[in-house]
């Protein structure tokens, strides 16, 4: 492997992503776990930069690190006493089986299309810009229907959340 800026960047972001992930599952403290999760997500944003997708990188930082981190923070704050517990989850065998199954599904789901007997698709040579992405989302023969459906779904979820959180009287 050639040693250049991209390779170095890839290693740094991999360390961030995996190290952050390990931090999330090993720390006993919910708040520190949140911070580790953000480190991990930041590494993923770095991958997007390396893949010349700055829009996705910025959205990764904005949506995951900005918004979800704050949501998690709220959850942590509202259950602050939970962080002081010393009991451990001890059902090791079911957790082991579940995580192994998930790992295998992901492993095959990702590697089979790449290394399996499927005809390999060439990566497109055209560099897509943010403008192309935006046009594809609103064009009639592009992704306008999924885009609109997702918007309606998110709006419905938001209204539902407000409806549940509302007081009965008002």
């Amino acid at each position, binding site marked *: 492997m050639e040693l250049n800026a991209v390779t170095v960047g890839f290693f740094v972001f991999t360390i961030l992503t995996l190290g952050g992930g390990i931090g999330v599952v090993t720390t006993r403290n919910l*708040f*520190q776990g949140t*911070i580790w999760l*953000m480190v991990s997500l930041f590494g993923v944003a770095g991958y997007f930069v390396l893949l010349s997708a*700055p*829009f996705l990188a*910025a*959205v990764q*930082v*904005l949506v995951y*690190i*900005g*918004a979800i*981190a*704050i949501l998690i*923070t*709220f959850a942590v*704050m509202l259950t602050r006493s939970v962080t002081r517990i010393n009991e451990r989850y001890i059902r090791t065998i079911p957790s082991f089986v579940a995580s192994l199954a998930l790992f295998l599904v992901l492993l095959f789901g990702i590697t089979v299309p790449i290394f399996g007997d499927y005809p390999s698709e060439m990566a497109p040579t055209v560099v897509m*810009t*943010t403008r192309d992405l935006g046009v594809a989302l609103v064009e009639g023969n592009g992704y306008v229907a999924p885009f609109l459906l997702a918007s309606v779904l998110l709006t419905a979820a938001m209204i539902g959340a407000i409806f549940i959180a509302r007081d009965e009287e008002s």
Partner: protein
Amino acid sequence: MDELCTGLCKLMVESGADAGLAQFVSLLVGVLLVSGVPLLTVIILIWVERKVAARIQDRIGPNRVGPLGLMQTFADLLKLLGKEDITPTSADRVLYNAAPLVSFASVVLIWVVVPFTPFHFGVDLEIGALYFVAIASLGTLAIMTAGWASNNKYALLGAFRVVALLVSYEVPLVFALLVPVMLAGSMSMLDIVNAQTGMWFVVLSPLAFAIFYISSQAETGRAPFDLIEAESELVAGFNIEYSGMKFGMFFAAEFLHVFTNGILMALLFFGGWMGPLYYESPLIAFGWLGLKGAIIYLTTLWLRNTVPRLRIDQIMAFNWKFLVPLSIANLILLSAALKIMQELGIAPRDMLSASFVEVLPTTVIMLLINLVMVAYLLGILRKRGQEARRESVTNQGALAQVASGAGD
């Protein structure tokens, strides 16, 4: 700093240096320059802020150290550096020390996409405006971390309020930011400024500017939105446990953020470096940007030192029931108007190359839409104000009656 990079790069290669090394060194110099401008500015900003605040409050302000007290900031800096660096025993050591760094970095990183002149900028990101929003969210995180890691109830309470305030006001801020992005048809800061060659965006949508101005005042935690450091309620807010230079970094981040927002508003709504003779020399262009940013900055100081603090429920209600609907309505109306005008052929399809005459019809129609909205809003506000006043008069009357009844 593109121009400098090529210049320095070329010079080093010509004098026999390795090409890769030359590029690295010139990039490093560029990074130092882009981050150095805000770092040096903040030293002067602290003096300006104290002087302006003093004048507004009928005081003189710093006047002992150096001419006009100019050296006061350096004296304060030395004092902060000499102070004992305390970390509370029960604090989360790593997060406690990381929070001020992240807080300051979140402001300095914004300067990466700020174009100082048409030729001098850190990077011209295709997603400049989005980058600004993404980076700004890191600041919230830093304050939350600081509040939690201090392990102090006042710090945590302060942090709670900050998150509530900053997350809420980010919504109208982004909706207001979308208006220049939509008009320019690009998220690149350079394109947004260039698209204002025909007409500054503040004329096309003064309402978007007003929303952006109010939200950024809230984002920096300045009065009337200074819940973050409500001294009378929270002792000092999220940074109560911080001392010495760590406190200084939060302090500097806030001061710099205010000025950064002034520069951003100049770029997004006031044509950035556009002004008479800006094409003659990059220095003149830089001067115009600085002047516009400074004027906006001074008005925020003026506002900060004039108005009292609002209650948290008032601030939230103002945001969710007034600013957010208004910013959404503004965006929808303006985008619909722009599309219709483009279909009719009145508005230019590409703002980047549009001249003053080409933009004029768009400007007039958009300004009219905004003025109608403002007139309608003022009507509503007037009615609400009258109702509130009537209510308070009735309440006072009732209170007076009770008081006199008790006296009998």
